[in-house]
């Protein structure tokens, strides 16, 4: 198998890691909430896609037009109801991070428990586009390629909004310096809520895409939260391009490792890479001091 084929496989996987991480990054980097229940939203969206597909035959990609806005609304509400009191009370960023970690840790168990009761602990899987797709002379799974393409479209859209709109500039300002942003007229509370909601919407998109090719159950959330945390810290907190680069890097590293070294070591390689980045660039690949 030529190395380029292995790398392509890694890129396809890494694109999804990047999407998962970008939503987390909006919540962490901009709204300053370490949302440990992030993966739970991803899991909920996966179930939503599963039920829509198996019960009503709804195409998962079309289903996203329902689940993504719903996730946006739910996350906005969570920010307003649960996080705003904490944000108001917190004197420093560190204090806010600490308190939201505890709050979202609780939320994680509430959501997981509710999902276990509602959906049972069974593994779910459905076959959507599980067909071969010839691309550049290599064969890939159509659902994985579609997930990658959708992730690419969403990531590009997020990047364009952040780079070229007033809203995006305000968000970036908020990520870099909340106090300064406030001084120049950025409504911190409102924007933080929106950033948090956008993050939740990306989680729902990622969850839908993941559900097309991975089996899932109510307990999968934490794995994705951890992966998102690793990618975000590697790429630089608040830096979307960093998340994209780090996500792709992780995917390619895992693919190369599984083919050339040993499949059992992919996790070790991921965390080794994480450590190296932390040692060499403590603020992440694209982080600014």
């Amino acid at each position, binding site marked *: 198998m030529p190395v380029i084929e*292995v790398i392509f496989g890694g890129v396809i996987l890494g694109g999804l890691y990047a999407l998962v991480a970008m939503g987390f990054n909006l919540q962490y980097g901009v709204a300053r909430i370490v949302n440990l229940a992030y993966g739970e939203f991803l899991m909920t969206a996966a179930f939503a896609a599963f039920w829509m597909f198996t019960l009503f035959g709804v195409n998962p990609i079309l289903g996203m037009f329902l689940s993504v806005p719903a996730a946006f609304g739910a996350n906005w509400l969570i920010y307003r109801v649960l996080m705003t009191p904490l944000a108001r009370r917190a004197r420093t960023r560190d204090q806010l991070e600490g308190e939201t970690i505890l709050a979202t840790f609780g939320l994680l168990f509430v959501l997981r428990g509710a999902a276990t009761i509602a959906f049972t602990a069974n593994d779910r899987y459905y076959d959507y586009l*599980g067909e071969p797709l010839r691309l550049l002379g290599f064969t890939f799974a159509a659902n994985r390629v579609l997930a990658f393409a959708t992730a690419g479209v969403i990531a590009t859209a997020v990047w364009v909004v952040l780079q070229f709109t007033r809203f995006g500039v305000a968000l970036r300002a908020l990520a870099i310096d909340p106090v300064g942003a406030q001084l120049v007229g950025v409504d911190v509370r409102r924007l933080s809520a929106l950033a948090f909601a956008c993050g939740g919407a990306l989680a729902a998109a990622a969850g839908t895409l993941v559900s097309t090719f991975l089996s899932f159950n109510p307990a999968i959330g934490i794995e994705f939260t951890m992966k998102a945390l690793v990618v975000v810290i590697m790429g630089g907190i608040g830096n979307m391009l960093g998340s994209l680069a780090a996500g792709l890097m992780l995917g390619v590293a895992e693919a190369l490792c599984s083919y050339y070294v040993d499949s059992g070591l992919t996790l070790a390689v991921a965390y080794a890479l994480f450590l190296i980045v932390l040692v060499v660039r403590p603020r992440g690949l694209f982080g600014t001091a």
Partner: protein
Amino acid sequence: MDSLLGRISFIALAMAAASSALAADAPKSIRIGYAISLSGVNAQGAATTTLPGYDLWVKDVNDKGGIMVKEFGKRIPVEVVAKYDDTSNAETLLRLEEKLMTQDKVDFVLPPWSTGFNLAVAPIFAKYGYPQLAVTANANDEEQLVKQFPTLFFFLNQPMHFGAALISVLDTLKSAGKINDKVVLLSVGDQFGAEFAAGFGAGLKGSGYDIVLQKSYPLGAADLTNEIKEAKSSGADTFIAGSYPPDTFMLAGTAITQGYNPKVYYTAVGTAFAEFGGAFKGKADGVFGIGGWDPNLPGAQDYYKRQVALTGHAPDGWASPVTYASLQILVQAIEKAGTLDRKKVLDAIANDGPWDTISGPIDLKTHIREKQWGVGQWQNGQFVGVSPSDMAGAQPVMFPKPAW
């Protein structure tokens, strides 16, 4: 927890009992309790294999009015008085089992899920003299364990027998010149996968097979495309994976997209799940997996339909029916012993078999269910037993596996 119907019939029975002089001493119900993983990493396995069987059993028994206990001269309904969540934590489980036996004082305790947990609680069952019908457990030293814990019964084969059952299928095909001697052996990177790879690997080499690719992958791997591509280019006719449910599904999905069609395709845990057939439909035909059952045994089809109707969850083609069968044994043993005295019921379970069950007759004289399926195969939308081939109801092997 009970159905309304169950409650009503229970109340009716209780009232009838109150007016009957003979039943003055009879308990109003047979108290059942269990601790099992309702949350945590083991919850999925418990929810798939074990819990639907427990629920169905309670309903079935009470629909008949209960279990006939001779010393009280009447049927007594079963009642789940305690159902605890061990949160997939062994220490929690140990504490809960003690509580069930010493504080809740239930009449019988149904076993937890998984090999590790069943072995962990075996000393407690033995200490308090509760029969332990450990269905979701197996170990290579079963014979020694049942000597050590006289209350313990095993229903699944020792791991090495599963390997032997598959190798006998391969031997038949190889000696007929239908497959070459090259084998791919993948396994998931945890204790199950390691034991599987060691056991199957040794067996395969001992029978003259050449393992051309052997790899393990981490539990929860997000992509197994490289592994399938390597298997495809290995030239082996036989693909064997010591897999767990998530990767069992992923391997099949990836093999389909990569057009990988080995003549023999075998995956382990999860292959027998009804969801596997549900997800891959006709493409599942020809896939081998661990386990197997005979859907043509008396009562088997009816059990299948009843469980779907009650729980909405189809039983798997391996340990689910055995779970139900183990409880059928408990009922018959109580009726045979004519008492709720656990010592006598224990003796009956061991000595008064073979018992009639939906998995065929089961004899527990050695405390180990001896004859059972090792390898099953999806055939026409059903996961049926194919090996050992001298089992009653063994289906002929579908060969080669049709292209996906």
